[in-house]
């Protein structure tokens, strides 16, 4: 299973990645980042098959995916 790493201070909380994940593994974080925005975060029990749709969708190059 793949692992998603969100660069929290690059994410602007636009939330475009959330609906594209067919496992609904991305949610809004309660924390605020350096920009004063709520970034997204990968759910603790989230699933990822490395489809990359979230990274493709992201306008801030804030999502990295690892095996």
């Amino acid at each position, binding site marked *: 299973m793949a692992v998603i790493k969100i660069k929290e201070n690059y994410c602007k909380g636009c*939330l475009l990645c959330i609906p594209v994940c067919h496992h609904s593994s991305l949610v809004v974080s309660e924390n605020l980042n350096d920009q004063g925005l709520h970034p997204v975060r990968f759910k603790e029990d989230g699933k990822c098959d490395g489809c*990359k749709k979230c990274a493709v*969708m992201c306008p801030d190059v804030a999502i990295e995916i690892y095996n």
Partner: protein
Amino acid sequence: MQAICEKPESFIDTPTHFCPGCGHGIVLRLIAEIIDAWGIRDKTIGLAPVGCSVLAYNYLDIDMCEAAHGRPPAVATGIKRVHPDHFVFAYQGDGDLAAIGMAEIIHAANRGEHITFIFVNNAIYGMTNGQMAPTTLVGQKSATTLSGRNPSNDGYPIRVCELLSVLEGSSYIERVSISSPENIRKTKKAIEKGFKTQKEKRGFSLIEILSPCPIYWRMDAIESMKYIDEKMTRTFPLGIIKDWE
């Protein structure tokens, strides 16, 4: 752990200045991915316009040139004539390309310049806080069309792809959108084809990319992608308008 998706090398490692949900970040990243995949960092020169993407050169690790508002097609022509074997691309918004720069883009197409034009159409003037653009939809509200664009005073949205397709010098023109991962992948293919057109010296290529401006459309990012799918594509149909293949 092996990375299966990370920041392209040609994309400079920095948070961007764009608004949340703005399409520029996606398109610039695609350009960086293509530069990496083709290994052409050392022979690509890009043009940055005036508008929200004026700082495009802060994100792409290649030689880049600023241009006055609307003039990238002329500046790019000047650069390409000095370096005919380099990849030269111009990145422009709707005001830059279709308002003040209309003469320049038409004549660059007419001369069949071997340059790839990336036209980001978000139907609004973002940088100057939300005025009407040449591509603003009929009825769309903006800072200078508070009650919605009215053709009798404000004219109609301009379909740049169709307009330029009439010119014999234009070779490859396609309209795409970045409203979903599938559409983003198609956009990347279209930009690659634009670079291929240039590489094979087949003339002028332009890729019009329907892109969101959530702030001045007064929507959130997800709604703005829906607006593209449901409203913008009715005025600006997606697809290949002209091809050399």
